[in-house]
């Protein structure tokens, strides 16, 4: 088991009243799982990912990832934890516009103690993995949307995380590019043995997971479906 949430709740204080974004959410994820999280807009999917990464404070409940207590950790511990264990893939790619593809991939290594050429080699290997080694010196604006997302995926992998959190990674891509990206994630999940939690509103994308979580108004709609098989 790599991830476990217990009675996770998140209430946003809003001037129009309290929003129950997450309500008593409990589930477990095994190492090597490809988890898809679906649900209507506003059902709490993003809130769940933010909570798991310790990017927002939850109201109650516990989160354990690789034995690390997320809900009670300090800001600095959480930073280190994210740096070491989690890779992020965003709908908006979140690349730095003035850095080239390979510089964007190396970004998380900026505070690592690796040597300059080790960082470079590592990033280059990952660009090869996502099929972009010939675009390594391109700026994001010189890449297509699908290519930008591949760069972002390479960046998410550069610190060898145990868990990738992806929030609508195909939300900005047209269907055929989406399938490419989903296949890439599947490949990473299989070959690199990295656990993936992917939020999506597309039923097609949800089919890529072996464990499917559905949220409805902040609550789990079902017992997570799927076979928690180790790969």
């Amino acid at each position, binding site marked *: 088991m790599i991830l476990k949430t217990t009675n996770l709740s998140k209430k946003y204080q809003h001037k129009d009243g309290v929003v129950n974004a997450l309500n008593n959410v409990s589930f477990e994820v095994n190492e090597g799982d490809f988890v898809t999280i679906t649900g209507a807009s506003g059902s709490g999917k993003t809130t769940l990912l933010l909570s798991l990464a310790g990017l927002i404070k939850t109201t109650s409940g516990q989160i354990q990832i690789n034995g690390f207590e997320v809900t009670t950790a300090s800001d600095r511990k959480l930073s280190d934890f994210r740096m070491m264990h989690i890779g992020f893939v*965003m709908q*908006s790619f979140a690349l730095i516009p003035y850095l080239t593809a390979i510089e964007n991939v190396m970004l998380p290594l900026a505070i690592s103690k690796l040597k300059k050429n080790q960082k470079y080699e590592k990033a280059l290997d990952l660009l090869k993995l996502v099929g972009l080694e010939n675009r390594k010196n391109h700026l994001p604006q010189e890449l297509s949307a699908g290519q930008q997302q591949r760069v972002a995926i390479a960046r998410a992998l550069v610190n060898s995380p145990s868990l990738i959190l992806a929030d609508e990674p195909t939300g900005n891509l047209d269907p055929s590019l989406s399938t490419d990206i989903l296949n890439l994630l599947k490949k990473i999940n299989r070959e690199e043995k990295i656990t993936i939690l992917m939020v999506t509103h597309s039923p097609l994308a949800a089919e890529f997971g072996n464990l499917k979580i559905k949220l409805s108004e902040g609550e789990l709609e079902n017992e997570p479906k799927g076979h928690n098989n180790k790969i």
Partner: protein
Amino acid sequence: MNIRKLVWLEFKQHKSQLISGLLAITLGIAVIVGIRSISVVSEKAVAVNLDNLGANILVLPQASNVDNYYSADIDSPTIPEEYVERIVSSNLEGVDNLSPKLTRRVKIGNENVVLTGILPKNEVASKPLWQKSGLLGNETKASCAPSNTANKSNGYEDEKLKRKVIDSLGTNECLVGSAIASKLKLSDGGKVEILGEKFKVTRVLTETGTIDDDRIFIHLHRAQELLKIPNQVSAIEIMGCCNAISDGLLSKLRNVLPDTKITTIGQIVSTQIQTNKMMNKVSLIFLIIIIFVGGISIGNFMWANINERRKEIGMLRMIGFNKTVIYRMILSKALVLGIIGGIVGYFLGTLAGMWLGPQLAGLPVKPIASLMGVSLAISVGVSLLGALIPSYLAGRIDPFKNMQEV
């Protein structure tokens, strides 16, 4: 890729905004350096003046400018040389030594030279009238006896009170200041053409740090002839006993020569000391102003830059950069800004000082290397201070901004 590289790449990306961010601090540093480099030479000149006073009373034409003792005689209007006789024949007590001078700027080749005509000691001494009234320092101890102790108590040694005494000077001989000698590549025994006439360099004078280094001395009467200003002088330097000066020698001299300006070096030096004091005050005020204006302006610039990069910084926090790393990034950018501001400010200020120094203070200003360190220290300090609040706020940027916007 490391933090320094990341900061540098971002910095290069936004270098067009640099000028607005650095304007205030750079100009502030430039003003401080400019004032300081002028006031340093000016202070040195005061020290040199006090040290090597050639004469302590100066008789100048009414219309001349007395801001600076050493350049007061240059290109000023003239007075008749005959005034020397008038002072001597008035038999004033405490007048030790008289030295009439005529000074004009001339060009030798491409160099500006201050040509000064003087009377050598042997000619002064040969005038019986002057001997009788005791015009030569060493022979006038008696008339000046009470003043010796007073002189000493003022820190003057009698020997030092004189500019280097020039014993004799032939019609075609000249003495050359050290700066002009090196500019014109002259040495002892060399030849130089002044206003169409050949002169022999009898001696290159030792460096004094004053405008004297740019002077060429020739015989007064020769200067009058070459400059076509017969029987006129620009100034008469008088050695006066301190007691005599305090006993009203100046006003007695003013009675003898009513249409002249009579001043003491003390007065001139004290105006210069006051100017120096004022310049130091101005630079202090500027220091305070740049700490505020420069700091606020850098802080404002950094804050605008951080706001523009909110998503980027949020993303860095998301992927695991902790607050300290963010602070480091912002502060190293401020460090780079501070270094640039300090260096550019230093050069601007030095250039301004070198350009304005001769015009404002009549003194040649040289670059002062140690001010570079001071400029850097101030600029970096101010810039880091200004970036303190922005970097704190940057550390507080929500790391999940990237996730929530769609």
